[in-house]
Every structure is written in C-alpha cells, then in structure tokens.
C-alpha cells in the first residue's frame, strides 16, 4: 500500500482518524510526510490552544487538554513522554529518530499511548529542547507551550527555551518559610516566568526591583500586611491573592486610590483577593471616596478576561458583574469592583468611563 498515492482528501481523512501522538510518529518517517500532515491538519492543529509539559506523575509528559463537544473536561491527550535511560540499556532497545538534527532514542509507551523519548541525564536539557523545537515547527504557531515545574529543591533547573511559558509552583513546606533573599536569587537567575504559585510565610516581601514582580500571573498566599507592598510593586497582569489573618480594610481603599491616581499596578488587568478570616465590610469599601455606582435598575457589563495562564481544566475566565467601579485619573479607564463574601475582585477594562457606560443596558 503506497500511502502517498492517495489524494489529499484521503490523506486528510486518514490523519483525522489518528491520534496526535501517532501523527508525530508518522511525521518522523520523512520530511515529505511531515509536510503532508501539516497541510492537511491545519484546522485540527489550530484548535490546540496550548501544549503542556507537565508533571502530574513521573515521567514528565507532553500533552494537551482535549476538547469534547466544545468543552474542556480535563481530558489529556498525551503526545510524548520524557524518560531518563538507565546505564544498562543499549541502543538496540530503542528505535532511533533524527529530531530537529539530533539523533534520539525512542520507545512506545503503551501505558500512556504515545512515544517516549529516552536520554541520559546529562543530555536532558538538549534532548527536550530538540523535541520542543520540533513541536514549534510541527504544530500551528498560535499554540502556547507551557512548562509546569514544581520546585522542591534548589537544584531544580528551569528550561529557557524559545516560546516556552513557565509556570513555577513552590513547595510550601520547603519554600514557605525560606528567607526572601534566597528566593530573590532564584528569580534573579531564572528566565522570565509567566506564572508563579507560592506561599510565603515570611513577614517581608521582595525588594522593589525584584524580577518576582515582573511575573505576569501570580497566585500568592501571604500575610495580609504584605499585600500593600506586593500591590505597590507588582508589574504583572493578573494576581490571585489569599491572605492570612486579619485584613486592614484601609489597605484595600488605599490600593484603589493609588490605582486611580495611576501610581501603582499600571499593567494590572485582574486582581482577586480572598480573605480567609474576616468578612469584608462591603459598605465601607464601596462607599469609599471615588467609587461610582451604576443604577441598580440597569445591568452592568460583564468583565470577562481570559486567564493569562490557563491550564485547560477550570474555566478560562473568572467574570465580574458589578454595579460599582472606579475610574483612573490618568487615562479615564474603568475598573469594576466587586465584593462578595470573602472575595474582593477588581477587573480593569480597556474602555474609558464613557465607553464603559455605553455598555450598560
């Protein structure tokens, strides 16, 4: 059976019936085959929003969240597995493939139904980089590649590859009580990180010039009195904060004043804070100076922003519907303010106040 004799439409139909991991294997057969797969699977590849290099279990695997009837249900479609080979394994136990100019050893992983690439620990980084470069060429250029790393040890190395968004989670048992200085060093020596998930049991935060504040999306659990410091220096887009202990409500009002004056969080798009101990005195905040209100008889527009770093499991947005808003003095842009139970949500609009009010129905 000479597959290449089939016309394009038949190739397309055959490839549609193959898993992505099988298409990757098929693309290894020849350059011509790779070209045919790419040209016939444009729509399918475009539907992959992101590919994750995750660590749900050992070994690290490459997968993408699988969309079923338009909804992501947390189903993962494995593409490849990364494994370190032991010294007693010989090359004969693998099939060899030239991947982006590097000859690499593979086996089929029946457990995860995908190819598994094997490398010596010393070659780990270069091997993964070759695979990553291959994917960059193979899949659509709109795909976001996300590397998830759980930092448990100072020796954990973080890759610095082209077009690879990094999500770093710190082991709270080990890092929660670490001195901020050593964490500063970590951020200073790391490549640009897109998402950080950490718990800080320390009283002090990072220095204002720390690279930590440049992280685009931050999920932080910290002491409530460290929140103003964080908000003063944060240069990212989205922050999700959980606070210990009693919250000083004046800090929240102060934050809104500073934001309005254009003094802080100029790039901020979304802020969500959970106060686990005390209820937020809603009236006190919403009656603070400068908070405006849309008439209760009208429906406010919904602030709906895609998460800066979305894993494909939870919904991609965390909408805010609120009648309360504040306006930034420097550019007249609006932020919706919502307080419900223990949650304070602050969503910045691209629209000016006039444009925003036109969306009220």
């Amino acid at each position, binding site marked *: *059976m000479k597959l290449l004799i089939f016309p394009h439409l038949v190739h397309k139909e055959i*490839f549609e*019936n193959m898993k992505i991991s099988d298409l990757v294997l098929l693309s290894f057969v020849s350059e*011509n085959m790779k070209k045919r797969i790419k040209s016939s699977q444009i729509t399918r590849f475009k539907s992959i929003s992101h590919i994750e290099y995750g660590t749900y279990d050992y070994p690290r695997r490459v997968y993408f969240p699988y969309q079923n009837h338009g909804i992501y249900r947390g189903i993962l479609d494995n593409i490849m597995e990364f494994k370190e080979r032991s010294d007693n394994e010989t090359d004969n136990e693998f*099939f060899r493939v030239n991947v982006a100019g590097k000859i690499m050893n593979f086996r089929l992983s*029946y457990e995860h139904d995908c190819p598994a690439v094997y490398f010596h620990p010393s070659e780990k980084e270069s091997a993964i980089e070759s695979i990553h470069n291959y994917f960059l060429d193979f899949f659509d250029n709109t795909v976001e590649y996300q590397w998830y790393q759980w930092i448990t040890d100072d020796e954990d190395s973080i890759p610095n590859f082209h077009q690879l968004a990094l999500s770093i989670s710190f082991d709270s048992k080990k890092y929660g009580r670490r001195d901020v200085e050593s964490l500063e060093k970590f951020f200073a020596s790391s490549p640009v990180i897109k998402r950080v998930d950490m718990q800080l049991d320390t009283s002090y935060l990072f220095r204002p010039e720390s690279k930590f504040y440049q992280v685009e999306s931050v999920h932080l659990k910290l002491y409530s009195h460290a929140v103003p410091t964080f908000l003063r220096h944060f240069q990212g887009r989205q922050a999700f904060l959980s606070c210990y202990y009693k919250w000083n409500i004046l800090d929240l009002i102060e934050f809104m004043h500073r934001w309005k004056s254009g003094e802080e969080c100029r790039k901020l798009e979304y802020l969500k804070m959970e106060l686990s101990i005390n209820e937020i005195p809603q009236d006190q905040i919403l009656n603070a100076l400068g908070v405006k209100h849309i008439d209760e008889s009208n429906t406010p527009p919904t602030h709906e922003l895609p998460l800066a770093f979305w894993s494909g499991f939870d919904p991609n947005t965390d909408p805010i519907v609120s009648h309360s808003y504040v306006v930034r003095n420097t550019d007249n842009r609006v932020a919706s303010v919502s307080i419900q139970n223990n949650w304070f949500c602050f969503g910045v609009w691209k629209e000016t106040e006039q444009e925003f009010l036109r969306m009220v129905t």
Partner: protein
Amino acid sequence: MSSTEQGTSSAAPAEPTTAPESAAAPEVPESFYYVHGKDKVVHKVSAGALQHSALIHGMISNLGYTEEQAKANPFPFENIDGDILQMVVDWCNQHKGKPTPPEDTNLPKQKEKLFDLVLAVNYLEIKELLTYCCKQVAMMVKGKSPEEIREIWMIPTDAEDEAAEKEAKKRAGKEAAGETAAAAGDAK
C-alpha cells in the same frame, strides 16, 4: 458480457394494496441502474443504494432512463477492479436507506484490497464508506515505530524523495529541451 443480479430484492414492484382514497399515493416502483468495473461484469443496483455514491447519484439524477435504457447503458468504471466494485455494490445495498453504523467491521483485512477499495470509494464519492476505510487504514499503523510505518505504507525515505525529485527535474529539463528543439525545427 456476463451479468449479475445485485440488489434485486425489490425488482418486481409490489401489487398496490387497496386503500381508502385518503391514504398516501401508491409506492413508485424503484428504478435500477447498471454498473461495471474493469472485468466488465455488470451489477444491477437500485437508485436507492446508489444514493450513497455522490458521483453516481449526480450522474443519474437527471437521466430519467427507462429500465431498458439503463440496462443498455451500464456505467463503466474501468479504473475499478471487478471484485472491488462488487464490494462497493454490496455495501451500498446493505446500507440502502439505513443510517450507517459508527463502525464497519466487514472491510477487507488485506492491505492491497483495502488500498484499492479506498481509491474506488474516493472516486465514487461514498463518504461514509471512505470514513470506515480510512479508519481502518489509520489503525494499520497504531503502535508501530516510524520504520514499521514506512514499511506498511511504503513511504520513501528523505534520500529517496530527493533522488526522485532530482530525476523528475532532469526529466522535465530534457522534455523542455526536446520541445524547444522541436519548435526550432518547426520554425525552420
């Protein structure tokens, strides 16, 4: 030319039963058409069964043939082997007027037969059968290494592709040179 009678279960129109005037109009007798492949064996197939093939359906929809005209003018599919056309006709008869199931396990297991069936079905534009066939072709390489896939689907290596491309360029160059020389000769 030999002839087989395929799909003839409703060849003789049923006697219309007596029904009250308000009942539906009497059933129109089913029309039949004839097809043959490379082996010239003629298959009689109902228009209903042929609806699966977008190509044939398009050909017959405006013909308005009588039974005699249809018999005298079988559709020739010289590019399809007789046994493959027989498979296609059987499939169309089996699935006439029925919703197609999600899977079809009666497809040929031999590689070459499946390959020919894919080409025939693609030519005849039988979408559902093409989907079944392509699923089966895809399954052939499930759990195989790239080298095994290359063998099963006879995919040339990069070196072989390059050599073939060079050869094709060389041939095209020679042909172009030949045409130029011929044109120059004509001009003289």
